[in-house]
C-alpha cells in the first residue's frame, strides 16, 4: 500500500496545533494517547507548530492498520514516526517523547537523522529490566510478567480472553471497530503487545548512536525511570543534557506541566 499524507493523517489520528516555524513532534508513551499532552499544548502551541499523533492501536488511530507483527517491537512504532515525518515532509523536527517513546524516538532518529534537530526526553528509560551488575532498570522480569498478567485481569472477558483460542489468533474479527473515546481505553491485544515491546526490551545500545542534542528530563522520584537511569543515559548519549526535576511520579508533563513546558522552551531557545 502506498502511504499518502491523507492516509497517514487518518491512520495515526494526527493533529497539528499552532503555526510556529519550529516543529515539535510529540510522541505519547505506553498506555495512553496524544491527549496526555493536553496540559502542555496551550503553552507550547502559541510558540511552536505541534504535531500530535496516536500510535496505531492507541487512541483514535485506525485499528484496521494494526499488525501484531509490526508492533511487537519498538521498531514498528518508530516506523510510524518516520512515516509521519516523511508523508508530512517535516524537517528540523524536535522530537518530544514520554517514557518508552524516548527510545522509539531514538530509533526513528537513527533511521532518518536528517529530519530531526533535537530530542526532548520526558522520563526516559532505555531498559526497564534490572540487568546486574551494571544496570538497574527498576524491575525484575517477574514484576513485568505480573504486569502482563494484571493487564489480562483488567481485560478479563470472553472476547479478549477466549476468542483467540476459538477463532485463531490471526482472526481479523478480533480487531473490530474503534476504541471508545475513554482516555486510556486500549484494545487488550494492542495493550499487551505494546507492554511486551516496552518492558521486556533493552535498547541501551542505541544511546551512543544518538547524535542529536538531547534534553533528558528526569523526575526526582519515579519508579519507572529513576534518576540513576537519567545519569546512565547522560553518560552514554554524546550530546545530552540531564535535568532532574523536583517532581514525584512518571507523568510529570501531566502533573507538573508548567515546569516541563518551561524546561522545553528554555531548551529550544538555547538551540535556536
Amino acid at each position, binding site marked *: 500500500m502506498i502511504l499518502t499524507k491523507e492516509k497517514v493523517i487518518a491512520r495515526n489520528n494526527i493533529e497539528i496545533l499552532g503555526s510556529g516555524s519550529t516543529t515539535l513532534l510529540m510522541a505519547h508513551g505506553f*498506555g495512553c494517547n496524544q491527549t496526555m499532552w493536553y496540559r502542555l499544548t496551550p503553552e507550547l502551541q502559541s510558540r511552536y507548530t505541534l504535531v500530535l499523533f496516536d500510535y496505531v492501536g492507541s487512541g483514535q488511530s485506525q485499528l484496521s492498520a494494526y499488525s501484531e507483527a509490526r508492533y511487537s517491537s519498538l521498531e514498528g512504532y518508530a516506523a510510524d514516526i518516520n512515516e509521519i515525518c516523511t508523508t508530512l515532509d517535516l524537517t528540523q523536527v524536535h522530537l518530544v517523547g514520554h517514557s518508552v517513546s524516548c527510545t522509539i524516538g531514538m530509533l526513528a532518529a537513527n533511521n532518518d537523522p536528517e529530519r530531526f534537530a533535537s530530542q526532548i526526553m520526558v522520563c526516559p528509560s532505555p531498559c526497564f529490566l534490572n540487568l546486574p551488575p551494571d544496570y538497574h532498570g527498576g524491575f525484575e522480569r517477574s514484576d*513485568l510478567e505480573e504486569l502482563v498478567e*494484571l493487564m*489480562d*485481569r483488567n481485560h478479563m472477558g470472553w472476547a479478549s480472553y477466549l476468542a483467540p483460542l476459538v477463532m485463531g489468533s490471526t482472526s481479523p474479527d478480533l480487531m473490530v471497530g474503534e476504541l471508545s473515546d475513554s*482516555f*486510556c481505553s486500549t484494545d487488550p491485544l494492542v495493550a499487551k503487545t505494546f507492554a511486551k515491546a516496552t*518492558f521486556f526490551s533493552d535498547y541501551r545500545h542505541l544511546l551512543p548512536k544518538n547524535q542529536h542534542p538531547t534534553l533528558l528530563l528526569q523526575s526526582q522520584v519515579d*519508579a519507572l525511570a529513576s534518576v540513576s537511569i537519567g545519569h546512565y543515559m547522560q553518560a552514554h548519549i554524546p550530546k545530552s543534557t540531564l535535568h532532574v526535576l523536583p517532581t514525584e511520579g512518571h*507523568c510529570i508533563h501531566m502533573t507538573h506541566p508548567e515546569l516541563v513546558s518551561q524546561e522545553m522552551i528554555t531548551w529550544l531557545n538555547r538551540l535556536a
Partner: protein
Amino acid sequence: MDDSAIASIDQFPVGCLVSDINRQIHYSNQYFEKRYGYARNELLGCDLFVLLSKASQIMYDSFIMPMIVYEGFCDEIRVTLTTKAGEPLPAVISAYRDPENNERIFWSVGSAARSEQLFQELTETKELLSKKISLLRSLSETDQLTGLPNRNALTQHMDHEMAHRDPETLAFTLAFIDLDGFKEVNDTYGHDMGDKVLRWAANRLVKNLKKEDVVARFGGDEFVVFLDTLDDIASAKKVFNRLINKLSEPFEVDAMTIQISASIGITFYPQTENVDTGQLLRQADQAMYQAKIAGRNQLSVFDTATEQHQKYTLKSRNVVQTAMLDNQFELYYQPKVNMRTGAVLGAEALLRWNHPDEGLKSPATFLPAISGTSTELSLGRWVLITALAQLQQWLDQGLDMSVSINIDGYHLQHPEFLNDLTTALSGFPDLPLQRLELEVIETSTIEDINRVATVVTSCRKIGIRVSLDDFGTGYSTLGHLRDLSVDVLKIDRSFVQNMLHSSGDLAIIKGVIGFASAFECDLIAEGIETLQHAQSLMELGCENGQGFYIARPMPANMLEGWIEDWQRQGFHRHFPSLKPLGPTQK
C-alpha cells in the same frame, strides 16, 4: 471530619484512602489495619507505592494516574496490593480526584478475591477448552481407522500450500488411489478383514513415500497422495508405478494371504490455467477412473486437453440450451427441383441460429461442440417437430410439398430415436408420411450399422422416405449402401463443385449415378452453383438438384413466393432452353 465520622468510615468494609497528586497518603481507614496489617496512622505521609506491587506501580503510572489527571476518576482497576508482611493481595481500586480540595485523590479499595477466583477458573476453562479444541481438531483431521489425515485435513493442507508457498517454486503431484476389488474383500471376508486391508494399504503407502509427502484417506477404499515435489513427470510416474507394484504384493492377514491391486490417477501442479484444490482432486479422480476403465492395476495421467474440451462442450451446451429457450433457432428451407422439367420436388430443412450478437449462424459453427450430447438430441427433436409443423402448414395451405430433415448419426443410433419420431408424428396424424424424408448423413459416425438398418427399415415401412446424404464422402460408403436400403442418394457438393475440372470427381459422380441405378434409388445432386454444373449433371443422367444457382436456403415464409416466381419465370431465367412443368410432376 469529626471523630464520629471517622469512626463511621472505619466501619466500612472497604479501604478508604486519601492521597495527593504526588502519591503522599493523607488518610487511611481501619480496613488497612485489618486487611493489610498497617497500624493506625502508620500509612500517613507514606508514598502510595508502599501499598502497590511493582507491576501495579507501572499500572499506576501508565493508566491510573493519567486517567485521574485527565478524566478526574478511574473505576475498578484490578491491581495487587501488598500487606505490611509483604503478602500480595488482589484488589480492585477506584479513585476520584477533587479539583477543589487541593487535588486530593479519594480511593476506595476492595478485595478482588472473588474476581481472582473467577479469573483462575476462567484460566482453567481456557486451558481445558484449549485441550478440547486441539483434540477436536485432531479428530476432525484424522481418519480413525488408519490414523492418516482425512479428506478435510488434506484439502486444508493443499489450500495452505497453494496460498502460502512461493508460486514460482511450488510444484507437486496429486494422486488419487483406489483399491481394486476391495468390495470383494469386504463381501468375502467381512468388514473386519476389509478394515485390516485398509490399514495395511495405508501403512504401505506411508512407508513407500517421503516424510514431506502427505497420504490421506479420502473415504472408503480411496486414498490421496500429495507428492511434495515434481522434478519431472517421468519420475512422478515412476514413484506411483512403484506404489502400484508395492500394493499388488500379496500379504498376510489373520493367516490368510490376500492380494489386492490399485488404480492410480495423477495430475500435476502448476498448470497453464489457474486450478484450485477441488479441481485438482477431480482431475486425479478422473484419471484414476480412466485407469480403472483401462483394466485396473495401473497408472493414468490426467489429460488437461481432454478437460479443456469437456469444459468447452459444457459451455456450448449451456449456450445452445439457452438459445433454444429464447427461440433463437429457425429452420430455413432450400428447394430441390428437377432441373430438366422445372418441377419443385420439395425442400430440405436446414437449421439456422439467429444469434443476437453474431448474426445468422450455420450448424457447422455450433453442432460439433454439442455432438453426442443430450443437447444435440433436444435440438434434433425440435428440428423434427418444427419441420413437421411447417410441412403440415404448407399442405393445409394447398401447397404440394415434401420436406426433408437431416438426422444426425448420434440421434439416429440413439435408443430413443424411433420413440422420438413416433411422438413427433403423433402430433400430425393427418400428415401423409411419404412427404417426409429423413436425410441420414453418411459421414456421421455410424457405429452400429445393424441398429441404423433397423431404424431405416422401420421408417420406410411406414412410408417415410430415407436418403443417404453427402454420399461418397464416408469411408464405408459401399458397405452402407449394401446394408441400408434407402430411397434416395444425394451426391455430395464436394464432387459437384470440382466435376468440371477434376476427372476424378467426375468419375465418382458417374459411379454414384451407376450405384443409384443399380440399387434402384432416386438421385439428387447438392451444390449446383452454375448452369454448367446443372447441364453436365443432366447429361450424366442426374436431373434432380439443389444449390445456390437454383435457390439459397430461405425462411419458411418466403418459400411459397419463390415457388410462384420459379414457375412463372425463374426456371426460364435459369434454364432458358427448358420449360417448367407443374409442381406435382416429378
